[in-house]
């Protein structure tokens, strides 16, 4: 097999795999359930309360 052929097979293989990967990413992004359903808000709130934390300025947490 020629050297050019080997390089071509490697390049085409990488690009084809990456294309397949991008398609897979897209499929997962379509299949992924909405954020609300993945997070059990009640459970998270309970855990936060149990840890003695309250939300501060929306992004940070401070101790009670």
């Amino acid at each position: 097999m020629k050297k050019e052929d080997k390089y071509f097979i490697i390049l085409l293989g990488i690009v084809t795999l990456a294309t397949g990967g991008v398609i897979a990413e897209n499929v997962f992004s379509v299949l992924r359930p909405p954020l609300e359903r993945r997070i059990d808000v009640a459970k998270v709130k309970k855990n936060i309360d149990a840890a003695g934390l309250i939300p501060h300025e929306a992004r940070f947490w401070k101790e009670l």
Partner: protein
Amino acid sequence: MKNYRAISLLFVTLFITGACFNLLRERDRQAADVKKILAACPVVLPQAKEFIKETAGVPHYKAFKTSSATANDLLGAAVVTTDIAPEIRGYAGAIKLLVGVDLQGNISRLSMISHSETPSYVLEMDSFLEQFKGLNIHNSFQLGRDIDGITRATITSEAVARAVEKSLKQTADKVLNLKVAGMTMEGKSIPLEQILIPLLLFAVAVTGVVTHKTVIRWIALLGGLVYFGILKSTMVSAVQIANICLLKFPAFHQSPLWYMLIGLTLITSVFWGMVFCGSLCPFATVQELLYNIAHRKSKKFPKSGLSRGLDQRGRDVKYAVLTLGLTPSVILGNASAASMEPFLTLFTLKGTKLAWGLLTFTLIAAIFHFRFWCKYLCPVGACLGLITRISLFRIRLGQNCINCELCERACPTGAIQMNEQRLPVITHPECILCGKCIRYCPKETLNIRVFTKHEKGR
């Protein structure tokens, strides 16, 4: 030679199956959306304890403070944008949002129910929707002035802004009996440039094909790169093919460019062949520029060192890519799955790590192989190539061929091969109509001529 008839049949079957499958599934999707809407009602109006659906007049969900649901308990209403503004669609069909409106006519919150937009174009959807929170019936919803659109997703952003504004103002007016300001974007005229510039570019491209002049072809290529690529970040893509398969189209007044691009590409493909791929595709232009710069000092016809058999087998990958993109789109009923082309990452400068990796390797490969993506992987090229089988005008061999083989050596895509009689045979699904073979033919034997019936068996 490949069995293009069988490949065409496969894709026609996939298209018809996809369209039928989607029509059947649409009913199930409506039921799933109803569940999502019911789940989203407490999200958009969190203080409400009870929601009652009203179907008379403007369809909406009345939100009440207590479960007794009396008029005094009324907190506001939640409406689905597609119920109020079904005519407003995004790039890939309807964008269904639930809008919560309080008694003062303020938007309490929005919740996305469903959409079919390309994920890589709408990565910032959540932060975009956050901007609507607190806007009220007296506000205007002008994109770019009052609301920051999602970069490079103007059609989607505008569709959301218009649908939310219309839903809010109609709900306030007809459900909550509030005095409402006029619509910001009502009566917006069709953007004429989206009709005229594509027309002009396709006219230049066809002129380049017919006259086979390199200068005209490059004017079209650079025009396509600037307008479709840099300014609009759009081109014929696998997502559009999947959307056609799923019978999802944007509204013409919102996106005349979509119709011009698809319509003119199909028309020129049926008449001449791959005019878009050869003379207008912005990503192909980038690849050709890279290749030409890298080979500027090489001889007249840079020869690929690749084995012919491997080159031919490599070209089959694009049909696999097209199948791989279309099949999940058809199964999921969402064209986003087919969004794999690296042009998206290049012109939007957005993408996942894998998408950036794909772009990088594609551009590296394009330095060594002429139009690497187009030749071996492009799903659009695969699809349009199959259409060229019915093209009316094609590059055809006339009389007086002297078997000089110059056309074969000049063809940058390797679409010409000499047969046993040392006569050129053109593989039209691989021909980008660059016209090099015609220009270099010493006897002017090759030219664009009407495709006659007796040739169809070839």
